[in-house]
């Protein structure tokens, strides 16, 4: 193969190849979007929640802070603020 011809081969492979990669992935993007829309609309399969099970087990008591601890925190914050110049 002569040399200019080889460069031409390289150039056309670049155009052809990049073009195809983009076309393929564009179709894939569109198809994926469509698939997601269809699935989310027509199935009852809800997306997995972002913060799954752990929440279910948290009772109200866990969220309450012990009053003594709370008082200690408040006092610490007050002292810290008082010390600041």
């Amino acid at each position, binding site marked *: *193969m002569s*040399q*200019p011809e*080889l*460069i031409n*081969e*390289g*150039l056309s*492979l*670049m155009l*052809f*190849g*990049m073009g*195809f*990669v*983009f076309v*393929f*992935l*564009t*179709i*894939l*993007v569109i*198809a*994926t*979007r469509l*698939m*997601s829309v269809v*699935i*989310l609309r027509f*199935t009852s*399969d*809800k*997306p*997995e*929640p*972002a913060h799954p099970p752990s929440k279910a087990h948290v009772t109200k008591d866990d969220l309450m802070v012990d009053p003594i601890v709370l008082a200690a925190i408040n006092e610490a914050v007050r002292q810290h603020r008082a010390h600041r110049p």
Partner: protein
Amino acid sequence: MDKLIALWNGSGLANITLPSAIMMAVGFVLLFLAIRKNFEPLLLIPIGFGCILANIPEAGLAYSAVEQLAHSHTPAYIDQLASLLGVQFETVKQLLDVYYNAPSSVQSAANNLAADLNFSNGMLYSFYSVTIASGVAPLVIFMGVGAMTDLGPLLANPRTLFLGAAAQFGIFATVLGATGLTALGWMDFSITQAAAIGIIGGADGPTAIYVSSILAPELLGAITVAAYSYMALVPLIQPPIMRALTSEQERAIEMEQLRPVSKSEKIVFPLLLLVLVALLLPNAAPLLGMFCFGNLMRESGVVDRLSDTAQNALINIVTIFLGLAVGSKLVADKFLQVETLGILALGVVAFCIGTATGILMAKLMNLFGNNRINPLIGSAGVSAVPMAARVSNKLGLEANPHNYLLMHAMGPNVAGVIGSAVAAGVIIKYVTVTAG
């Protein structure tokens, strides 16, 4: 005394040549990089060890039976081979060149002769023919990669597929570079070799091995070593380019949290991809088909045993043999050539261009649409999973300590794997059409 001389003549010390000593040193360097510098140790340890084994003089571990025969130092045997090939014996290399170019009927006659004379294939040669020459090992690894990959981030933001597409520009720019070097007369690559070199820019080990085993098996050693070395060097190669192409504000962009993706979407996607490949690009079907298969096993959730095997035991077994087989291609007469330097240089250029085009594509996408993309994730579009995504994350955190880009970067990262497999399919298709 004769026995003693024979023993000495058969020893490694008497037979070692400078090239094979250099190649053994290369093997030791690879082992050093893997063990002390932690560069892709899973591959460089088997490759480096295979390289040392393959270059042990006289052992002929990387030789086929006929090659063993030609290197046997037994004039009677070599004369038989020479007369079978219909040439006068001059050097071993000349004899083997005739053998490689002989029609397959003559080649199989030579094989039979070697078998009659009790020569057999070297161990590494057998590994090579089972794993790489057959094309099996890279495909099994791709299945394992599919089984390991969570496509959730990609499905949550399919636009990132474009970043994976843009980063493949490095592949094609390098093909052009390789043909350019040939045109300048500095190197001598054919279009098939140029195409195989370009695939280093895809930054995907199995894809690079697969493509070069089909298009340019003679360059396989250099291409594989270049591909894996640069993947290990991602944390050094990419950041300067990423900093140069983005401003401080762009690097600090925080991206919207990814939406949760449902299980059905994850199950349907590999099938969707498979159908598209079947319809549009059957040449990418081996790579992407195995990828989709592995991913379907993972997401279907009903074959956990198979998925577990594919992503652990099986991929590890295949990696061991694949590494040794690649190492067996690191023999002096194939590796110690100017072309290898060219391949190493072109490989790093491919990587840099891929990184740059990924980032530029992300900046381009920011001009349209309202969901801003942090351009740093564009560089993850060269595959190199998950190293490239981690690099994006690290640079994002440097610019803005609340900016966790890892999950966002996994989208383009996986897109890069798909993109380079598509690019591989296109290249194989194009080159076989033009050559045939």
